[in-house]
């Protein structure tokens, strides 16, 4: 018989993964379209605040794609990935606040007869930032906040180390399934409770604010800055998507999916399951943090509520509704649900008067979301991404459809 072509690609190529190509194409068209229509640089159909919403949505998509890899592909239901997202936001926020406040304070002091010493300047900045929590000095956690490069390093390093340490402890003791999910919730809860304290050094429940003002870019105006961040978010999503498409392809992807389906069996094949899980967990945490670092300058404010356990549960809901186990599904779910969420809760959806009771979507949206989640889980486990399976495509199947010779043949098409 002639050699049967087998489904083993030697390496990752875009041509071999048409869905990646399509996703990147759609993202590129979307980015260009929004730019052309935006208030700042284009036709002015899309307001600056909506450009920011769309940019933030792209960041959420990136976090959701990372969540999909750790959950949908590797089988680790982490309910803590939004904590890493938040850490990324805090890390970049520290630099933004310090640099911005320094600029303002320096301007205010410029009129004084005696120029301020560096020490006086620092004290003035510190009391400006930390006055709300009754502190006068920069806490130790702000040690690098005057350097953009170091603080960008912290965006990657802090969540990377935290995820690495947490994952190492959890995976090494073979905590899996629901117990691991609970542990990750515990981690998120602990982090947000710590952030809520005034003496955590991160301004307690005030959080960090004014992050939309980018120091040194004042002459740009928010219109242009919003487009800049929108493009940066789109680029990050594209790169993250490519990274994860590569990670989940080939033999490494097969091993990752095998760990999801039967990790004990993977051990008997000789693979280090714990190491692989740690790698996936940490890498996705770092990507989520990068997404957060791009999100919060567009949101303008971050507070400990953003790190609360609920945020991570939402992330899992987006991925479930979008369809886990496929990257575009996760991105789609995050985009759709978060946009709808802001439409419903932002008063966009009209109230429904029922005579005796009026349904206000600001209150009822979470109920609707919850019902949708239950419905998708029960009725359409493939989620929104499953809709793409309905698109007829050329059968590229090898071998017969059924288990034995009497069953459907591949020539006969789909049974």
């Amino acid at each position, binding site marked *: 018989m002639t050699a*049967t072509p*087998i489904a*083993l*690609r*030697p390496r990752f190529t875009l041509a071999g993964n048409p869905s990646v190509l399509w996703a990147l194409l759609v993202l590129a068209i979307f980015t260009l379209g929004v730019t052309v229509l935006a208030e700042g640089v284009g036709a002015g159909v899309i307001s600056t605040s909506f450009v920011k919403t769309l940019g933030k949505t792209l960041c959420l998509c990136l976090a959701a794609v990372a969540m999909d890899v750790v959950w949908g592909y590797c089988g680790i239901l982490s309910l803590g990935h939004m904590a890493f997202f938040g850490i990324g936001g805090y890390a970049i926020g520290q630099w933004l606040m310090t640099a911005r406040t320094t600029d303002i304070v320096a301007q205010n002091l410029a009129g004084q007869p005696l120029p301020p010493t560096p020490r006086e300047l620092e004290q003035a900045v510190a009391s400006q930032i930390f006055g709300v929590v009754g502190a006068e000095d920069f806490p130790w956690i702000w040690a690098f906040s005057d350097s953009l490069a170091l603080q960008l390093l912290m965006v990657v390093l802090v969540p990377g180390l935290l995820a690495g340490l947490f994952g190492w402890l959890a995976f090494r003791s073979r905590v899996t399934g629901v117990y691991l999910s609970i542990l990750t919730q515990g981690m998120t809860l602990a982090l947000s409770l710590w952030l809520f304290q005034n003496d955590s050094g991160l301004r307690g429940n005030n959080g960090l604010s004014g992050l939309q003002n980018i120091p040194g870019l004042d002459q740009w105006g928010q219109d242009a800055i919003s487009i800049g961040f929108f493009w940066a978010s789109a680029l990050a999503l594209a790169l993250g998507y490519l990274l994860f498409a590569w990670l989940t392809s080939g033999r490494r992807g097969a091993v990752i999916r095998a760990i999801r389906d039967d990790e004990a069996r993977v*051990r*008997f094949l000789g693979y280090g399951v714990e190491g692989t899980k740690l790698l996936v967990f940490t890498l996705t945490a770092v990507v989520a943090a990068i997404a957060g670092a791009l999100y919060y300058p567009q949101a303008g404010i971050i507070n400990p509520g953003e790190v609360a356990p609920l945020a991570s549960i939402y992330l899992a809901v987006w991925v479930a509704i979008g369809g886990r186990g496929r990257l575009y599904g996760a991105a789609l779910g995050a985009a759709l649900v978060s946009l709808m969420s802001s439409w419903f809760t932002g008063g966009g959806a009209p109230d429904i008067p029922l005579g005796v009771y009026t349904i206000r979507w600001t209150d009822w949206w979470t109920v609707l979301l919850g019902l949708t989640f239950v419905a998708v889980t029960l009725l359409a486990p493939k989620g929104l991404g499953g809709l793409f399976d309905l698109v007829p495509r050329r059968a590229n199947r090898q*071998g017969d459809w*059924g288990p034995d010779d009497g069953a459907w043949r591949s020539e006969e098409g789909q049974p």
Partner: protein
Amino acid sequence: MSTLLEVDSISVSFDGFRAINNLSLTVPDTGLRAIIGPNGAGKTTFMDVVTGKTRPDSGRVLWGDGAMNLVGLSESRIARLGLGRKFQRPTVFEAQSVAENLDMALRNPRNPFRVLFAKRTPEDRTRVEAIAEEIGLVSHLGRRAGELSHGQKQWLEIGMLLAQDPRLLLVDEPAAGMTVGEREHTTDLLGRAAKTRAVVVVEHDMEFVRRLDCRVTVLHEGRVLAEGSLDHVTSDQDVIDVYLGR
């Protein structure tokens, strides 16, 4: 012929129940060996101990020429040393193709970073096709393993073991749920594999063991009851009493 595996007086108990009681046996580096015994004789626990899944309360499991002690090593480390295990229930990765299942099992570097950046070489592909030929699944390489019949899954799992190229193959009830024709194919597969490596088959089906035509160890209540050819052990009075007489 030298000794590949030496199990030296291991004992395992679960909550006071002695699953294995001072068990010792040796496995030479080539050839077939069958381990039989009634349910609860400790067959599966024995495999769990050897493959690192269960840690024995006492005793040693010595491996290879250097007599390395396997007790306390992780499952993946033991697998990398050259010990392959086939489970009773066929455990293949059902969501993945037959080719992917075999490719994953191929003997290649297992270090996470090497796995991360590994490319599938043309040799890998040739090996996958050769193994598929051996297990009779060449025309099924592109199919999802979950679609295969029970017997085909069993062969795929044996194929994955062959791909690992282990020095010792531990096979748990390979013929369970197979038709007569499938059994013959399985016997051939195991017999061929045993020409170059050690194959230990755990089985309670006497007919299948007879077809393997090899040295037999009878386990009972966690210890060795008898050892020898099948005819020898089946004529042993103890064996008749506890196992065949029932």
